[in-house]
């Protein structure tokens, strides 16, 4: 047990001479070094962009490394009589990003109960996840970091934190969870800094103004019926990716820009045991509030999204699962979009653990029949000790059309190695 016990003379450190108390708390975390290399040559930037004056570095040929970083994550948990607080901060020395060394506060939240434990309050910066999909999300509109996901960082970095107040009300027939974020937190997507991408035009992205009505609210009502969980969801906010386009205005002399149009989502999910495994199904109605009748070609139309999946252990320490996923664009007009009217995807997860679970072999495949593209995530993890872990992996993208999700990432195909020491 590598415990870092810091005994602090409170009077000295806090500058108060109140009492000579010694506060004892534990500090945990890890130190990690990671390197990842692009395995493809980068092609020309999208033809639709014409010849922009300045191109992001990913196209300039200088970015062979997609990951070259060292990270220290520090975690601390504080427990009081009626409340607790959790902190996670990363000090990241990132030699690929332009901003170099940074301190990222990933979690800083407090939790307490009220009203006879019926109400649970979590306030602060925290990750939130719900829904049933395995790396596919319909009703989970909390921010995700697809850059970290695509370059092979630890799974925890897929979830971006949101600054939110989360209220849970328990004791009614349905458990109620409400998450309110005063500041909209979009997904983190490739910007050209390290990963190439495609958009219909070369234009900046603008975020919603930080004002009260531009927050996000997400609601979940859930109930266990026997061993089956049933849940209903609502979301009021914005598309998490900048799918809207504001055209250039010659009068105001502003250039065109992408933005996050308003979005409401209503959905439901069911999950439970089936034939010795776990089965789930989830659906959602994406109400594109700025273009309900699908008239505008600058704002995405409303969509119906649905998926179903199944996973089970086929033999000892081997888990295999598959999902089917569908997005149906409403009021579809051919030619308006790059997107197909019906976007389909299947996924396959295979996980074998060996040698008392110290070796993990993992493969996760996304394949889209409609877009004819695929993404294969491979990794081998080895716990040399409880503290020292090695992960070797690859992110392989394939697609003929550079405008599809995985097709645009084809030149971001990479392999990586991470070494971590936990304490």
């Amino acid at each position, binding site marked *: *047990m*590598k415990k870092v016990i810091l005994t602090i003379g409170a009077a000295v450190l806090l500058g108060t001479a109140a009492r000579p108390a010694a506060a004892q708390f*534990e500090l*945990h*975390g*890890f130190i990690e070094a990671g390197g990842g290399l692009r395995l493809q040559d980068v092609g020309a930037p999208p033809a639709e962009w014409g010849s922009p004056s300045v191109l992001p570095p990913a196209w300039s040929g200088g970015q062979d490394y997609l990951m070259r970083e060292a990270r220290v994550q520090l*975690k601390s*948990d*504080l*427990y009081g009589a009626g409340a*607790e607080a959790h902190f*996670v901060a990363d000090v990241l020395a990132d030699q690929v990003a332009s901003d170099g060394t940074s301190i990222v506060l990933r979690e800083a939240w407090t*939790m307490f109960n009220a009203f006879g434990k019926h109400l*649970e309050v979590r306030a602060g910066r*925290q*990750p*939130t*996840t719900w829904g049933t999909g395995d790396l596919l999300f319909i009703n989970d509109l909390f921010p995700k970091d697809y850059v970290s996901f695509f370059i092979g960082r630890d*799974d*925890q970095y*897929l*979830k971006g934190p949101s600054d939110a107040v989360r209220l*849970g009300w*328990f004791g009614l027939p349905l*458990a109620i969870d409400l998450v309110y974020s005063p500041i909209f937190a979009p997904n983190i997507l490739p910007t050209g800094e390290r990963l190439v991408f495609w958009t219909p035009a070369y234009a900046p992205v603008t975020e919603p103004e930080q004002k009260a009505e531009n927050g996000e609210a997400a609601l979940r009502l*859930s109930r*266990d019926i026997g*061993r089956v*969980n049933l849940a209903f969801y609502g979301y009021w906010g914005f598309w998490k990716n900048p799918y809207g386009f504001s055209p250039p205005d010659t009068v105001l002399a502003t250039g065109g820009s992408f933005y996050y149009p308003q979005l409401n989502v209503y959905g439901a999910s069911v*999950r439970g*045991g089936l034939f*010795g*495994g*776990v089965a789930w199904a989830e659906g959602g109605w994406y109400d594109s509030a700025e273009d309900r009748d699908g008239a505008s070609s600058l704002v995405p139309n409303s969509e119906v999204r649905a998926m179903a999946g199944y*996973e*089970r*252990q086929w*033999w*000892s*320490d081997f*888990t295999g699962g598959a999902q089917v996923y569908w997005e149906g664009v409403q009021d579809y007009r051919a030619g308006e979009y790059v997107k197909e009217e019906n976007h389909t995807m299947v996924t396959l997860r295979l996980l074998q*653990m060996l040698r*008392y*679970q*110290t070796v993990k072999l993992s493969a996760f495949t996304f394949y889209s029949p409609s877009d004819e593209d695929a993404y294969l995530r491979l990794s081998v993890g080895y*716990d040399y*000790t*409880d*503290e020292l*872990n090695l992960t070797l992996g690859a992110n392989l993208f394939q697609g003929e059309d550079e405008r599809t999700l995985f097709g645009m990432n084809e030149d971001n195909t990479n392999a990586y190695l991470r070494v*971590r020491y*936990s*304490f």
Partner: protein
Amino acid sequence: MRKFILSTLLVSGLDAATALTPARAQAPDAEALMKEAHLNMYYAGDDGSARVKMVITDKNGKTRERDFTILRKDFAEGGEQRYYVYFYEPNDVRRTTFMAWKNPDGDDSRWIYVPSLDLVKPLSANDKKSSFVGSDFAYEDVSGRHWSDDTHKFVREEEKGGFQTWVIESVPRSGDYFAKKVTWIDQGSRLVAREEYFDGKGEVLKVLEVTKIETVDGHATALERRMTTPRKQNNTMIVFGSIDYDQGISADIFTERYLKSPPRQYVAGQ
């Protein structure tokens, strides 16, 4: 402990005396003994909690450690149970929680909660012999193999590992990962003192040894257990501490809410 040795001696002394009488010629009811040992071992009280330290030692002598709190609530004696586990160590799974609803008549349900992602993930639970947290203990060994899954035969009485025991041979009722199991039941505490699992060729698959029994809150409790996998020269030692029975742990502890927000009245912060 002393009390137990005493009662063991007492009981075995009585057995020795009664063994001479003709009435003792009848063998003990193997099934009844296995049921009693199972209930004592895995259903003591209506609920229980313990702080568990686990040390996994591989063939090179390298060790890995697990430190967790385990909560249990019984819904029917010998029937449905729910388990809740909160991990302190190793550090990369700190604050991770695990929950299992054991269903002796069908598949169990299991969930894991990953705090860094705020992710509740159900685990498929059809394979009872998968390793529990990378140890020699399979899921089934943590909550016990139900006596009704096997047929039992009384073999003999003998002294084993410091315990006076009844020896019982069990064969799975339907095909399973082992062909035969031999159980040594401590006559004093009526707990399992030792178990050996054999494959079809008669080779030992795994061995459970109980090395310390004490009475806690009136319940004889196996405080130290070691599971060895001879073929892999791997073993796992489990030591139970801070044991409490019958605290009235409520059923709602074993739900998603507390999976995400560990109940601090039972789970220490550090």
